């Protein structure tokens, strides 16, 4: 059973569904719920996902049945039908996705059946009440719906085509930049990547995703249900991978995919060598200032499992910061925690971080204090500093409290604007260095 959470860095299943739909090209949600759910949830991602905006048909534009107390008593299926009919006339889309809120699921409305009546008009539907779980549940509900209803059967697979799962639009604030970079790198290695939410996607293109021969899932919390369904319905196997941030992560990622798809080793080697050379040709620029005033920091990472390890690895293995503490807030299962801990064996830094699983945002400060000898006002005190917090927007006050530098990367991010940038791949590694070091020179 889920327990209460202090300052949860999530919305609910409906929120996850809406942010996922907002990431799909020319898709329109039709929300069967009370009037406020859709705009409020959409707005969560508008403001807390680097000002991503509400999208093509988000926020107050989202068609909603707007059910109220009398529907709770008498049911709201007729209202949903009326709403779908008018949405089809008024809104222009390639796919209409009916999703549901708590109210109508508790009273037992069958929204999926109602939406089936409109299947020939590009309408599909799924159940996404908030109480189903967090953002990730909604992501998987929508992607599974696409797998069932949109993606066509394709017995003939394309050897070098992959589908990307587990990158949740909006919840990964940098999802589009990340997807575009992963796609670029895979293209360099001769692999076509289907991204659902990246640049130049369309509902038509998504319908052909059944041709892929491998699914890459970048999260252990989101996308696995979808990958399992793709395996079941479309016979496509999947592999789990970590989001590659910077040279060491990306190199490992490319080699891994090379092995899975039996790519020409020489081609993969060339891509890695070329990209690494470019990476360091740019990185060279900050070597002077980095060394002249010592930009090495004790790193405290607070993020979801999608970013926590990837960022820690980059900071430790690539940038040479001291990984001190990494807090992960979205793994509840003991076994999954043990598996996740194993990832950190790859860290090459002399110092290894303490890893904690903590879902209450307020507790991280206590953990940081516990992690270091307390200041007893002694004459010589070896302080935890200079430190830098890479977390979500919520950790800003943590950074302020301990006098550390701060960059928000993991959801929510509301103190910066994010358009095309991402942190994946070689280019993403450079962007992350830019953003980290910018914080250190911003006052100059």
């Amino acid at each position, binding site marked *: *059973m*889920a327990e*209460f*959470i*202090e*300052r*949860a860095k*999530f*919305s*609910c*299943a*409906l*929120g996850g569904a809406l942010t996922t739909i907002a990431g799909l090209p020319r898709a*329109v949600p039709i929300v069967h719920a*009370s*009037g*406020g*759910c859709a*705009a*409020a*949830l959409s*707005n*969560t991602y508008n*403001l*807390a996902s680097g000002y991503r*905006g*509400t999208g093509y*048909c988000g926020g*107050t*534009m*989202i*068609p*909603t*049945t*707007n059910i*109220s*107390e*009398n529907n709770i008593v008498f049911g709201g299926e007729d209202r949903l039908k*009326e*709403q779908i009919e*008018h*949405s089809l*006339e*008024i*809104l*222009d889309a390639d796919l209409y996705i009916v999703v549901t809120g*708590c*109210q109508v699921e*508790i*009273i037992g409305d069958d929204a999926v059946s109602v939406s089936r009546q409109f299947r020939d008009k590009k309408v599909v539907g799924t159940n996404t009440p*908030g*109480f189903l*779980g967090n*953002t990730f549940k909604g992501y998987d509900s929508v992607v599974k719906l696409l797998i069932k209803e949109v993606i066509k059967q394709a017995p003939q697979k394309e050897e070098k085509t992959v589908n990307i799962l587990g990158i949740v639009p909006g919840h990964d604030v940098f999802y589009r930049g990340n997807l575009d970079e992963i796609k670029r790198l895979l293209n360099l290695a001769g692999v076509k990547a289907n991204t659902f939410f990246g640049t130049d996607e369309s509902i038509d293109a998504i319908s052909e995703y059944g041709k892929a021969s491998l699914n890459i899932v970048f999260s252990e919390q989101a996308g696995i249900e979808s990958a399992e369904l793709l395996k079941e319905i479309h016979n496509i196997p999947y592999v789990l991978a970590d989001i590659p941030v910077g040279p060491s992560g990306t190199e490992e990622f490319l080699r891994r995919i090379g092995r899975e798809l039996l790519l020409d080793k020489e081609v993969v080697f060339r891509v890695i060598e070329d990209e690494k050379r470019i990476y360091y040709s740019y990185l060279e620029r900050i070597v002077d200032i980095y060394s002249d005033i010592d930009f090495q920091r004790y790193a405290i990472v607070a993020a979801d499992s999608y970013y926590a390890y990837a960022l820690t690895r980059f900071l430790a293995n690539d940038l040479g910061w001291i990984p001190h503490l990494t807090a992960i807030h979205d793994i509840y299962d003991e076994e999954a925690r043990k598996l996740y801990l194993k990832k950190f064996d790859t860290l090459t830094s002399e110092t290894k971080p303490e890893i904690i699983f903590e879902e209450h945002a*307020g507790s991280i400060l206590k953990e940081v204090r516990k992690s270091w000898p307390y200041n007893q006002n002694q004459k010589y005190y070896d302080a935890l500093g200079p430190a830098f917090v890479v977390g979500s*927007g*919520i950790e800003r006050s943590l950074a302020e409290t301990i006098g550390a530098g701060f960059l928000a990367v993991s*959801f*929510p991010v*509301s103190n910066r604007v994010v358009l095309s940038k991402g942190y994946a791949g070689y280019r993403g590694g450079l962007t992350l260095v830019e953003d980290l070091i910018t914080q250190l020179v911003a006052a100059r």
Partner: protein
Amino acid sequence: MGNFVEGLTYNFLGAGAPPTREERIGACHAFCGSCRQLSENIKSGCANLSDRKFSQSGGCQLMLAVGIVSSLSNVVMIIHSPLGCCSGFVGSGGLRKTMRASKGKKDEDFVWLHTNLDELDVVQGGIDKLKRAILYAEKEYHPEAIIIANGCVPGIIGDDIDSLVTELSDTISAKIVPVHCEGFKSKYVASGYDSAYHGVLKHLLNPAEIYDNILPRASEDRDDKERNRISRTINIFNVGSNSFGDEAELSRLVSALGLIPKVLPLHASLDELAHIGEAALNVSICATHDDYLLGHLKERFGTEYLIDTLPIGIRNTNQWIRLIAERFHLEDEAERLITLETKQLQEALEPLKAALKGKKIFVGGGETRILTTAEFFYSLGMELVGVKAHNVDRFVENILDDMENQELVIEVAAGQPAEELNILNRLKPDIYIGHLNANGWVSKLGIPNFPLFGQQLNFMGYSGAFELARKAVKILKNTNFVKNVSANVKLPLSDEWFLRDPKDNIKEAAIY
């Protein structure tokens, strides 16, 4: 203005939650037509009985309710619901920080908890979890108050929050305040204000005890001074859309009359709330927000109140000052103040008027705010082409009747950008002023716009009037942003919809 609240009563604290606005006041939330038609429909009662065939997402009373109570100092919020309700907190913590900073208040972390209700809780109830969350909040943060706002799920499954509050209130030091604001309960999001104030009134307004002084006559002297102070004190009730600039300007005007302004209740500490009864007059600046609070305070403390216009623009600021002054027999002082202020302001506005003259304007948002804002721009020589109100109720009936152009287009809708953009596409205003979450769509339509309120904007009083005019002029100095956006970003609305009459979307409500 007594007629605004005629027949309304405010004695609902015996109940767990206040009546919804539908029950208590009655309001129209779906209308497209002219001011004249709307007036007629309100008088005949038809206005309250309409609904939409195609509806879009608007507000939720939960958001408005927590907007009020989460601003209070040193409180922890518990959202008793799944994770989605109020998930927007993740993006608004910074706004609370900057707002407090602008008011010179101590920075404090905003802490909230979600009970994170799941499928099992829907079956078994979520009260135990809520109890653990309350105890956690008390132990970890020992706030002055723990405020529980509940979403739809506990409302439908019937969690008995009030009993839990009673059970725990003697065992922990924080005051526990339940706010019942299930979104499905009301189509009028403003019901959320009543829900919030219901909780505040019931659980947080405990007047401070006054002890006798042991020195001879000291208590009497003190009481005399207090009575004198209170007889000159007015409470100005701020709202979420106020900036500190607004509060400073309104306080300045009230002080100019020789009165003592106190600004409440947003961002106040519980101690400040405890002294809310110490005033000679409670002044609302927006009836939509606080008639429930002011009406109740009158019943509880006997404090007279004033619910009239919003002090936006010259005419309405003048009126606001006059009505306050009247209560204290300061008519002459008020006239002197008004004469001085309007003279200075008019001189300052003169150069701005040239840029605005004849330009078409459309205003959308809360009923009183849009009508007063529209009046101001009209007075500057702009052409008012239409207005859109979230809802319309008795508090603006007379303003509607006073509108010079009775054929003016008015839409009543909370959100509903499809209808609004259809109307705007026909009216083609030069400038649009709108509520949060509306302006982005208007930009995509290619109409220059600015927000109807904002933390950094001063809208109210004379300084606000100048700022408003200045902003409109500024926006028109370069309109390339919206031109580029509209030429390159597509709206999701079909071409056919723009040809249809938006009125056709309004229908008679199936069940009121």
